[in-house]
């Protein structure tokens, strides 16, 4: 399992898990799982397009992730934002269908972009990924406080001179950067599962972001590592393990929150039914 050819997989998995843990925390407190789904899945169309033109798929991924995030955050101003997200997503996927129909070698490529190919990571792929990942974490460090405030208390943020809309755009770009880093290696499906399940479990265990973020990173790391190990030993797709373990963390988080609520209300003898 720790053979030399697996080293890159472990490194790539770790980078992706750390980024997904941090960004995922914001996805959860913003309640925006749909965006976390739409950006990676839509961006895959960009990779398909770049492959068609003979470019590096990373360029296409980045362009489409940025364009998608920007379109969604600009158009959602006066409208119901989930409808906009859905429309932008299907448009990008529709373009993906077009690109795929234009290219000659489709099935395997698509399958890899959607479901990931973490066991075949090369060093050449690791370097841009690590750099992008660092930039992503740095950017989060810079906008941490305003982003947190705008995500939890938009009105207070606005009163303090932070424009929540700007923060929406900033968050869209962060998500796009994280997507570009991760999708070529872990696939769109995996990225989405990591962004939602473990962070949701972490943030239902504690309300304090300073604890929730490290906890979220810890959960994504455990998910990722045990999935690589399981995929290696059992020889089933890694996407299945990541999504199952991620959903497991969510359930554990919900259970913990429920137990805590019960323990708190038990002495009075009133069980909260909300």
């Amino acid at each position: 399992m720790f053979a030399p050819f697996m080293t890159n997989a472990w490194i790539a998995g770790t980078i992706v898990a750390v980024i997904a843990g941090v960004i995922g925390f914001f996805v959860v407190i913003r309640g925006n799982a749909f965006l976390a789904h739409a950006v990676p899945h839509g961006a895959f169309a960009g990779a398909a397009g770049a492959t068609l033109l003979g470019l590096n798929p990373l360029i296409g991924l980045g362009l489409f992730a940025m364009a998608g995030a920007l379109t969604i955050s600009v158009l959602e101003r006066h409208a119901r934002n989930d409808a906009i997200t859905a429309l932008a997503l299907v448009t990008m996927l529709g373009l993906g269908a077009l690109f795929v129909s234009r290219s000659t070698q489709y099935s395997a490529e698509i399958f890899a972009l959607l479901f990931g190919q973490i066991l075949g990571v090369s060093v050449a792929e690791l370097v841009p990924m690590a750099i992008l990942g660092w930039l992503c974490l740095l950017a989060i460090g810079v906008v941490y406080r305003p982003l947190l405030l705008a995500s939890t208390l938009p009105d207070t943020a606005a009163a303090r001179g932070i424009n929540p809309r700007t923060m929406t755009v900033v968050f869209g770009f962060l998500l796009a950067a994280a997507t570009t880093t991760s999708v070529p290696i872990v696939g769109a499906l995996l990225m989405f599962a990591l962004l939602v399940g473990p962070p949701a479990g972490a943030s239902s265990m504690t309300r304090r972001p300073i604890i929730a973020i490290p906890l979220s990173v810890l959960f994504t790391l455990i998910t990722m590592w045990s999935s690589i190990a399981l995929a290696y030993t059992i020889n089933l797709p890694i996407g299945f393990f990541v999504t199952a373990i991620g959903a497991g963390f969510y359930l554990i988080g919900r259970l913990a929150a429920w137990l805590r609520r019960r323990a708190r209300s038990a002495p009075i003898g009133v069980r909260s039914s909300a």
Partner: protein
Amino acid sequence: MSADGASLADFFASPTVQGALVVGSVVAVVTGIIGIFTVMRRQSFAGHALADLGAVGGSGAFLVGLSQLWGFVGAGILAALLMEAIGIRRLQGRDIATGVVFGFGMGLTALFLFWDTTIDNTSNAAVSVLFGSLFVLDPNLIPTVIVLGIVALVLLGTVYRWLLIESVDHDLAVARGVPVRVAGIVFLIALALAVELSSLTIGAILSTALLIGPASTALQITRRFGLAVALSATLGTAVTWAGCFISYESHYWAGPRGNWPVSFCIVALTFLLYLGTRIAVALRHTIRPSTGLPAAPPGLESTAGGGS
């Protein structure tokens, strides 16, 4: 799809295009009507998730040799109930709950597709489930699609008044004794049925596009409910027909790789339609500022215009 030039004349006259138009219209009308409620209730994510999750059943059905249709429908309804059970009611955590079910379902799809490809060597399963095509329909499915579409509309019909009251004011609906939760579950099942049958026939992408696109376009044009429903169904059908036509015509200019995928044509038209409407509505607002009332019929002037 990849018919060569010589046989194109027969292709257009053949039942393939006619079947595509019939199924496309049925799906467009059913999802257009259900889409209005989906957009009003802000459940687009659930709608899209259900469309994709049908693929779990679809790819699982491949494995055990069941009919794909029942795999799709069964998985859709199960997923809808699961989302409801883990808390789709609270607006706060709804997206996250949907996301967790969705993510897990897609993981299962990955597993099933992996088995499909290793056992049956049908590596195109992933692509066909996701993208689908209106032009490669199984003609035997057409009656089932129509029946299930009607079932979905009937289900919606039984709860639509409750849904309407709730969409106006949730608290008011609860106070008046509207069974909000039951209405929500029934709606979700109707949504699952509609979306599954369309994602089975035309692919998950197109299914979401036809669910959300025409409905949100219609809701921008009018605030009157009945009109919005009619408009949504009409727009959906129009876009489907136009998309089929463009995809067919594209054979003449699209180059050696054959026609443009019909899903792409319809989705692109839907998005352009939505964007065009957004721009038109925005322009109308700037030309006629929202402070002034729209030219009121003579009888209403005395009651409506007090200021000037």
